[in-house]
């Protein structure tokens, strides 16, 4: 069990165009809170040693209620709040605009409908005609293939209980809720096979609700794969929500 085998990388490989913003938020937060934590632990350690009870020594009698004390503590708290909390919230706000606030247009994006159920992912494509609910729609189970370097928009709704569509290598997830439609968008910039995980407890099979995200190298490779698919998945009864629904 070497250090490297114990996961020297903090995060799984990032294959997305926006994931770096998530990772950067982490490092910034760790740096800032790390400084605060070191200061606290340092002060704690110092005080415990320096102000240990010793015979003949009495503590300094103060209630810390003076205007100066109040100003010092609230001032320090405010400074910490601004330097750490507000700073991080601002960076999060900026990241949000890119990761969640700029969905691609319908023309350029590949649209996919995903309807998880206990315990599998039903994944549906509009097919060559680009329209859902037509004869050339393709549905797979657990196989999400996408072309690299093209934005993808996924709309989700659950067939039974709440599931959550999690792509760790793209740093995003969204709950799939029965009775409503949610969505997310992303773009992969590296080909390969990656995990789709369910991130909301959905029953005793929750642990094995694994799907496969396959990023095809090119549009041709993707189209070739799509053309080969036979239709699987549940009948039209539960599909067919309006695109452009609630996000």
């Amino acid at each position, binding site marked *: 069990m070497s250090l490297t085998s114990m996961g020297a990388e903090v995060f799984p490989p990032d294959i997305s165009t926006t994931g770096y913003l998530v990772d950067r938020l982490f490092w910034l937060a760790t740096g800032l809170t790390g400084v605060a934590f070191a200061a606290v632990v340092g002060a704690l350690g110092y005080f415990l040693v320096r102000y240990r009870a010793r015979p003949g020594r009495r*503590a300094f009698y103060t209630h810390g209620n003076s205007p100066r004390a109040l100003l010092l503590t609230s001032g320090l*708290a405010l400074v910490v709040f601004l330097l750490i909390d507000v700073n991080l919230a601002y960076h999060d706000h900026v990241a949000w605009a890119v990761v969640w606030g700029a969905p691609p247009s319908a023309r350029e994006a590949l649209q996919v409908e995903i309807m998880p159920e206990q315990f599998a992912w039903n994944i549906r494509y509009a097919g060559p005609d680009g329209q859902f609910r037509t004869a050339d729609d393709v549905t797979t189970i657990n196989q999400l293939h996408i072309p690299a370097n093209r934005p993808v928009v996924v709309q989700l709704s659950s067939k039974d209980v709440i599931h959550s569509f999690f792509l760790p290598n793209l740093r995003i997830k969204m709950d799939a809720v029965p009775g409503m439609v949610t969505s997310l968008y992303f773009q992969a910039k590296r080909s390969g096979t990656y995990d789709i995980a369910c991130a909301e407890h959905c029953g005793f*099979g929750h642990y094995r609700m694994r799907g496969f995200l396959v990023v095809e190298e090119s549009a041709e490779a993707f189209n070739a794969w799509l053309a080969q698919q036979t239709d699987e998945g549940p009948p039209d009864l539960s599909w067919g929500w309006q695109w452009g629904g609630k996000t």
Partner: protein
Amino acid sequence: MAHPPRSFWRRYVFSTNHKVIAVQYLLTGILFLAMGGLMALLIRWQLAYPWQPIPLVGKLLFPGSGGAVTPEAYPMLFTMHGGIMVFFAITPILLGAMGNYTIPLEVGARDMAFPRLNMLSYWLLFLGSMILLVSFFVPGGAAGFGWTIYAPLSSSTEVSPGWGQDLFILGLALDAVSILMGGLNYITTIMQLRAPGLTLRRLPLTLWGLFYSAVLNTLWLPIVAAALFMVLCDRRLGTAFFVAGPLAPHSGGQVLLYQHLFWGFGHPEVYILILPVWGLVGDLLSVFSRKPAFGYKATVVSMLTITILSGIVWGHHMFTSGMNPLVGKAFMILTITISVPTAIFFLNWLGTLWRGAIRLTVPMLFALGVVFVFAIGGLTGLFNALQVFDIYIHDTYFVVGHFHYTLAASVLFGAYAFIYYWFPKIFGRQMSPLLGRLHFGLSFLFLNAVFSGMFVVGLHGHMRRIADATTYEFLKPMQAWNVWIGWAALGLGLSQLLFFHNFVRSLLKGKTAPANPWQAGSLAWTVSSPPPEHNFEARPRVFCGPHEYGVPELTDGDWLSQTDPRAATLAKS
């Protein structure tokens, strides 16, 4: 005052005396703490060695599968672990026992405002806990939808059949009523029954924490009670408040409504659990630094601010729920504001230690432990508050690590601080300091090993509530960490045996405790250990606050009791 002789049952079982009720809560809580802890060990074993038979106890617990956890049993383990720890371990110890024991004594009253209601509240908890235990044995077993009881997994009998699920909700509902009754007593007693001279500015911080906690319970428990009743209706009366989509019997309700109701209570709940600890730590740091609690007024106001803010931040549990993202942003901003009052009272803790004369007794060690682990827990809360980052770590072990640092670590250390500090007063005996130090040291080590390990795997994307991480390719590098966490958890569990042994042995054979072994200034320490049946012979008269330590002009010791008339001129509070 003469009493007719009373039977064993009226004195020690069906008693209205707050001290007896407190001990009942304490023993019940400790029992369920052990149970919840055992379940945690089973969970960690399964994660470390998926589907392997558990040594020693496996065949007894899981006879049908050769001693290994099954996919159906695993959700029951984490559901019951969470439910038991929150409602039947921590709440009875910190709110039930600490609240019941300390409040009347520290305000100078003979008992709670409503002693019979108090007794009823304990027996409701007892009944609720029995119902929870029974749920293990009904067909289908115990509840398996997570302690958060998310609909529609919980509210549809199609996906979660079995009366065990209903019994879990019923047990919780009874506990909720019990807590509400207790809260009513705490609020009334603290506000209305204080001894002459005991103004609100002279109240021990522990009681402020308990008061705020009770206020939050009074306001928010009824919300979750309403939600839970609606879940039961969905399950058994054919309604569809929280069922929608294909599972719904008719047009259906709104699934997210459940989450809003639940977290509307659920977020204040975490403050309900920690506020008494913050109060206790404030008092203990003062007693054992021999120095007044620094910035007492600011601390009280900060705790009040947090109490208020806790009710308007619940959406940060729902960033991935499909909720409107702008609403999410608002919740992020509201959530981070809690940092300000938290930083204030945290700095005041450090201010109390500064230039003190620190005595590292066992309660003090645990109080200092709280300071350390709560720093980590609180700071990692910030990571969770950031909307974009949270969406990545939501439902991963990063969150689990965060709330275990603030709950299992801070609240648990707080519970131990309470027990070690108040044991002499409650039982008239002293616990072994050596065993106490060992207990602290080992717990501190193992606790940090377990829960920091969770941050590591969580950042890598390790989801919560999964029985087997090796199903996923991207989690395979994390399996070694699951093994590490598992063994550290075992170490943590075994270290608690030191506590149980110390507790039981001291109860039976501990040295007799003096009235005030800690030289503490508050009212409870002016009476014998244990106190007389009705606490005070005459109503105490209070002349100062509870933290008059290090008063310069004194020649006979370094502190003033709250009832010392000299405090009228010598003390500054």
